[in-house]
């Protein structure tokens, strides 16, 4: 079955979203979105901290820890992980897997150390891929701010040999644009490595998701704007306004369409899964009673 995975970009206490990983705007509290997505049948959740705040105020471990109290699907967490101790801290907070980019490129042994200590299934290699020419992609780090000169296709193979258990593959060129996934990038990586590939960056419609599975051979699909914009209105009605960060969007001063390069045809997860099922792609049937607390919370 194809896994459908919302991506939650975190800055401080907030869920944010940018374009090409830049120009972050505040969409609300990550707790609210996470719970909505869990109830909607998300197969996993991915948290990526945009400012790598593993230790400061409102740190990522606290956000994950609160989520793990009520959300019983796998949680992947990344942003600012530099050591085995950092990995352990996030796993103890309730993460099931960690996503590592910058630190792994600086010191590939971290992958081996992490896989040895916690198992390969814990270690997700996070790639920010920037297209440099036909069939050529460079790894970027630090939310696509830093060039590395490292070739994506060489790096994924080496990282899997070192023990990476999955690849979270983000196209920086497509990220936040709603223009569709980079099928060529995804298909090439999927053909090179024996571990699952999670396609990320560019989903603007249910058709895009279908295409990256059918043509890109993705094992899992990750999307942010596609899901966020389907529920942001509901979130605004249900919660208090925010004070921190770039909240122009939430105050209604910016239309949704300015957030991506073109209108994103937002979809709730059940709608997306129904679309995929119609196209013959098997997805998990989410039970009706995923609502936390509805099961058997006993006094």
């Amino acid at each position: 079955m194809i896994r459908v995975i919302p991506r939650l970009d975190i800055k401080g206490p907030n869920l944010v979203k940018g374009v090409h990983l830049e120009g972050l705007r505040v969409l609300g509290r990550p707790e609210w979105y996470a719970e909505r997505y869990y109830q909607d049948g998300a197969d996993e959740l991915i948290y990526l901290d945009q400012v790598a705040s593993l230790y400061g105020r409102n740190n990522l471990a606290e956000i994950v820890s609160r989520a793990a109290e009520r959300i019983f699907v796998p949680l992947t967490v990344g942003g600012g992980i530099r050591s085995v101790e950092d990995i352990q801290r996030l796993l103890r907070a309730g993460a099931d897997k960690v996503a590592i980019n910058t630190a792994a490129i600086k010191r590939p042994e971290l992958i081996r150390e992490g896989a040895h200590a916690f198992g390969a299934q814990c270690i997700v290699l996070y790639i920010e891929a920037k297209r440099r020419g036909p069939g050529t992609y460079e790894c970027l780090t630090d939310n696509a701010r830093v060039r590395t000169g490292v070739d994506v296709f060489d790096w994924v193979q080496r990282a899997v040999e070192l023990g990476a258990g999955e690849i979270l593959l983000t196209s920086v060129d497509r990220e936040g644009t709603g223009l569709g996934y980079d099928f060529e990038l995804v298909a090439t990586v999927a053909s090179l490595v024996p571990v699952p590939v999670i396609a990320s960056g560019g989903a603007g419609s249910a058709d895009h998701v279908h295409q990256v599975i059918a043509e890109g051979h993705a094992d899992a699909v990750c999307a942010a704007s596609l899901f966020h914009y389907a529920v942001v209105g509901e979130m605004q009605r249900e919660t208090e306004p925010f004070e921190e960060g770039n909240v122009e969007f939430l105050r209604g001063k910016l239309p949704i369409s300015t957030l991506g390069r073109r209108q994103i045809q937002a979809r709730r997860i059940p709608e997306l899964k129904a679309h995929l099922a119609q196209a013959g792609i098997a997805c998990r049937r989410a039970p009706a009673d995923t609502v936390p607390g509805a099961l058997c919370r006993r006094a």
Partner: protein
Amino acid sequence: MPPRVTIIDYGLGNLFSLRRALGYLGAEPETASTPREVEQAEQLILPGVGAFGDGMRQLRERGLVDPVRRAATEGVPLLGICLGMQLFFTESEEFGRHDGLGIFAGRVGRLAATAASGEPVKVPHVGWNALTPAPGGLPWERSALQELAPGDSVYFVHSYVPSPEDGAVTVAEMAHGGHRYCAMVQRGAVVGCQFHPEKSGAVGLRILRHFLGLEG
């Protein structure tokens, strides 16, 4: 009284998710790493993520092999999850041949890297699969799956999978790459899940709730 349940901590895997899920269901999870603690437990869970040989070595070093075997024969409710379930079997071929706990007869082998169609299959297998009744296996209404319907899905992360010698202990199967594999076994109060019920949403919580003896 909230049900008391004891998670065996033998140094392998992340117990936090499991503790949280059990706590959410109203149980009071404790951890045990000594023979005495395991012997005194009312209900036991053997979790685990990692290699089979490491798992058995850790159990042996802590003196837990016999207490766990005894719990199984004495009818103490015992749930094995992922590697914990694999350790219930006679032996494994993961990184050489290793003896297991022998609670169930059978061998743990690697998932096929080639699909029935000849296409390559991703190993480790990470993802959700539907559970289906096993032909000739234990009927769901007499198993820990009695609250579930065929097709309900659960979350797997594994490269190896057991093949029970006695098909009657298999409760559920799953399909990966066109091959069918054992996903869950049960004999009396001993239940083994190759998947992670603590990460399988409402379906997994129902399995844990049933194991804990909590009514729906």
